[in-house]
């Protein structure tokens, strides 16, 4: 599994590329983040889609029994929206800006889920592993 810090770095790299190809890459990184949450809670990440997107199906799966996970519901929908804007008009003059915004939204999803995993004591983000994660141990 990819550590969250690595996912954050990949998000930053895709955002900086400012190319339309980053749209699906950022969506996939969002799916990776939610898959980590589902796995950490003992589930198998779904391969189904909702409204045409796996990210939204994963969010629904991740929110089962955890209502507070809905705090990232609109963040997921925004990531899909930003991705769609880029894919629908790859030659648009605002594509660079749209990729940047998609990257910031993906980053927020990553930070939010990472924070929730730490608070919930799940995966590598359990409190006792914080020092290892931050490299201060």
């Amino acid at each position, binding site marked *: 599994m990819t550590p969250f810090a690595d996912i954050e770095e990949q998000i930053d790299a895709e955002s900086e590329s400012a190319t339309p190809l980053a749209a699906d890459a950022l969506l996939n990184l969002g799916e990776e983040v939610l898959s980590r949450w589902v796995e950490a809670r003992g589930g198998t990440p779904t391969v189904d889609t909702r409204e045409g997107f796996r990210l939204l199906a994963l969010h629904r799966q991740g929110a089962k029994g955890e*209502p507070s996970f*809905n*705090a*990232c*519901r*609109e*963040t997921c*929908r*925004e990531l899909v*929206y*930003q991705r769609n804007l880029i894919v629908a008009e790859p030659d648009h003059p605002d594509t660079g*800006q749209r990729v*940047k*915004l998609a990257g*910031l*939204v993906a*980053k*927020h999803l990553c*930070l*939010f889920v*990472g*924070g929730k995993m*730490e*608070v919930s004591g799940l995966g590598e983000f359990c*409190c006792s592993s*914080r020092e290892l994660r*931050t490299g201060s141990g």
Partner: protein
Amino acid sequence: MGEQKYKKVAYYPGCALDGSGHSYNRSTKAVGKAVGLDLVEVKNWNCCGAMEVKNIDPKLQTYLSSRVMSIAANEMGFDTVMAPCNGCYHNLKKAEYDLANDADTIETTEQLSTKAGHATYEAGQIETIHALDWIKQGIGEDGLRERVKNGLNGLKVANYYGCMYTRPRHIFPEKDKGDGSESTYEPHFMDDLLEAAGAENVSFPLKTACCGGAHTLSDSDMSTKLVLNILKTAEACGAEVIATECPTCHSGLEMHQIRAEKEFGQKTEVKILYFTQLLGLALGVRPRKLGIHENVSDSMSFIKEKGLV
């Protein structure tokens, strides 16, 4: 046109507006006075149960919220309570839902209310509204435009609602009802009001994202990163100001903006003001009456530079 029933409502400021969110309290009252909407503070109100009680005993939290509504309805004769804090607003709405749908919660609330010596709140006695509902439906955009004295001059604003204002959907049955109602997917009441006051709203993709308020004590770095990402996104959208409508989000944005610079060396310039402070400026209310001097970050020079005073 505004709804007559919101002209005079019971006001539940909650604990935050008595402390760290005092400027929200001041500016809410000042805006109400400027537009002719009356507030009568709930007598002897208590904490809504916020997160602390809710995490330990949700039924006790429901009782605490129900007591506020009981006083407003049974001792003061109101049918509407306005709560500007997202946490209070959420908890009163949740209590309303639970008391309409859960027999165990009703029983617990009856027992505790009897023990405390006040009438038991019954679902349906009170409609809880947010400060956004109060102004939007109390006077509406047209009413606001008529009263604007010093428009916001195209100030670029990112409207930040936070994650508690719209979720969970089932406790907000009045939302998502089409034209004129608030949306839980894409909230717009703050956008509507500030546009009427002369602001230019930017498209802001993190308007309902989490500010990290819940992580502040357990992992301050995580909160700072979440806030920093919100601030950077607002700036990337071209915003000069982030407008807030929740004291927890507002305090978090202000404090972690400073911390992000101190701890991570990442400085952001976007200003953070309550939407009521921005509306107040547009209505010609003096900054001091809006508590702008009470905010953690200094926005006065910016406000003067923009010609808003």
